[in-house]
């Protein structure tokens, strides 16, 4: 039995305008999706070149979901994106070269070489850096929402989590607190159908993760995560509802993880057919077609975006590669915060 509401795909440009995006915004969304994929593709190359230490994760297939939600966020909203959500960092405006620096363990990555992969965030962009432990950031996002509620600010927090991570206690406790206090938080489940090699039916026994929202006293919505505009529309509604005192929403965005869990994983356990089917619903290709059909995106525009992204990436790679590795002497600095660390916009 499905309890959650299934969101419809987005149709016309008019409908999108109503949801708050004009044509320029749409092209920007498209650009952000391409940039997101580009960053991860270049990351993959860097990895194969031996320039990225450790392991390497991407969110291929999740570009629409990540960018769609982030586009719906306002500048004062905050979020805790995870390892498939590069599009959130991109949309919030992180400088791509800093991501490459992060990947390569250089001092100019947001964590200054201390952590790797997408374990990072630019706090000036309203993002909080994830930890590996899933979904430990979810209660943290709930806490951000609690701060907004206490101060009576009209802001929302967005907490991402995977469908696999939905099995953990942190998810339950965070949603419970958010539900009983009607906190301004939007939970976004990136349901990419696999948790490493584990299929969804071994992670939860409902049809959809969103079916659980009811158990916490709020609404659950299932949306096609390859439809960036549908994701945007649902996120926008949920964020506005949160900001205006309506409490949390759980949005489940369904996609397929289009690669292995990480670089080392060939995903042999995913049926080939599944990949083939979902490849047809590539979120970028899908949106490109939509833009051409519904917003008259021209060849020139498309090319311009493609080449701007390419330029950005090339510059970013170059700049990142100039960033030095950290000095060993920096290791022990800053284990504890000092009062100046509280000189941030949030602590005013």
């Amino acid at each position: 039995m499905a309890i959650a509401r299934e969101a419809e795909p987005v149709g016309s440009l008019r409908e999108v305008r109503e949801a708050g995006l004009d044509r320029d915004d749409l092209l920007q969304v498209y650009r952000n999706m391409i940039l997101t994929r580009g960053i991860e593709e270049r990351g993959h190359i860097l990895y194969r070149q031996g320039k990225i230490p450790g392991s390497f994760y991407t969110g291929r297939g999740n570009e629409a979901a990540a960018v769609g939600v982030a586009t719906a966020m306002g500048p004062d909203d905050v979020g805790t994106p995870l390892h498939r959500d590069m599009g959130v960092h991109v949309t919030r405006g992180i400088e791509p070269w800093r991501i490459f620096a992060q990947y390569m363990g250089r001092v100019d990555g947001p964590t200054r070489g201390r952590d790797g992969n997408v374990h990072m965030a630019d706090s000036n962009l309203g993002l909080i850096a994830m930890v590996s432990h899933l979904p430990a950031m979810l209660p943290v996002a709930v806490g951000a929402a609690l701060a907004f509620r206490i101060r009576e600010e009209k802001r929302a927090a967005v907490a991402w989590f995977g469908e696999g991570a939905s099995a953990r206690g942190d998810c339950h406790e965070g949603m419970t607190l958010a539900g009983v206090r009607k906190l301004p938080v939007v939970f976004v489940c990136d349901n990419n159908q696999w948790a490493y090699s584990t299929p969804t039916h071994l992670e939860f026994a409902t049809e959809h993760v969103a079916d659980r929202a009811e158990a916490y006293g709020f609404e659950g919505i299932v949306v096609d995560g390859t439809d960036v505009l549908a994701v945007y529309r649902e996120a926008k509604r949920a964020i506005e509802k949160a900001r205006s005192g309506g409490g949390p929403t759980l949005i489940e965005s369904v996609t397929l993880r289009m690669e292995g869990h990480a670089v080392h994983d060939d995903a042999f356990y995913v049926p080939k057919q599944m990949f083939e089917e979902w490849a047809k619903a590539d979120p970028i290709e899908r949106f490109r077609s939509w833009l051409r059909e519904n917003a008259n995106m021209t060849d020139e525009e498309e090319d311009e975006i493609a080449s701007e992204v390419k330029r950005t990436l090339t510059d970013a790679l170059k700049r990142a590669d100039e960033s030095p590795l950290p000095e060993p002497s920096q290791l022990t600095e800053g284990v504890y915060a000092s009062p100046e660390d509280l000189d941030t916009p949030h602590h005013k």
Partner: protein
Amino acid sequence: MAELTYLQAISDGLRTEMRRDKRVFVIGEDVGVYGGAFKVTLGFQEEFGHWRVIDAPLAETAIVGACTGAAIMGMRPVAEMQFADFISCAWDQLVTVAAKQRWRAGTAVPIVVRLPSGGGFSGGPFHSQNPESSFAHVPGLKCVCPATPEDAKGLLISAIEDPNPVLYFEHKHLYRRIKAEVPEERYTVPIGKARTHQEGDDVTVVTWGAMVYTAEEAAKQLDDVSVEIVDLRTVMPWDKAAVLESVRKTSKVLVLHEDTRTGGFGAEIAATIAEDAFEDLDAPVKRIAAPDTPVPFSPPLEKAFIPQVEDVAAGLRELAEY
């Protein structure tokens, strides 16, 4: 100055900060209408409203995780665990998120977690523990363990002011038993500075929390031995300089704590002294701590578990005669 119990001093410190700083809020199980299991926040909800004194669901991970998020958004949360023992349910949030966020991502997490800890009244295995050693090992966390009402107030205010996650261990057995004059105004006691509870020349006791009083009683039983008691006050960071200075004077040390012995924080102190003051020592550094068992319920067992005045007196005697 007013005479306050240790418990009243904690309330007073918390109330002082909540009045002074709107960013401070309290969250925990039954802290609102009920005023907390030990009534530390009695009357707070009336004064500060139910969005600054929040009755949380029975969910320690949510409580600590939410504090972390709120702190990052500029608040100064003070969480109450109903008993320190239940912090085990929020271990991951503290160790994985709060402790490492500053170092990894540059994000300060100024939260305080209040932990009513310690035994002495048949609370049994789950209402009596002293879990400070477990947390003191985790880089990024601070551990505060006041023994006096004055320190209880001043250290709580320091903890709230501190830009780091601070675990504030308040010893339940001191709550109503220990009273002293406490300044009415706001003041802080620095985190990381020990206090000489009493001066002496022959043996140094390094301890904290309720054991300060056990050491004091034990010292009284030895007319012929002059005992210096160093109350660490904060276990992480701990005041190595003050300890080493005392050791240089007495050349003999007893490290005393209520938590179990093996791998307890006393080991760190003893190992450090043995390494850094090797040439100054006239006797091995002795440790007295609880035996390696859970905390027992029945009084004769609990008495055998918690270090007693006689145990400490015997240890002091042994060191004096070494």
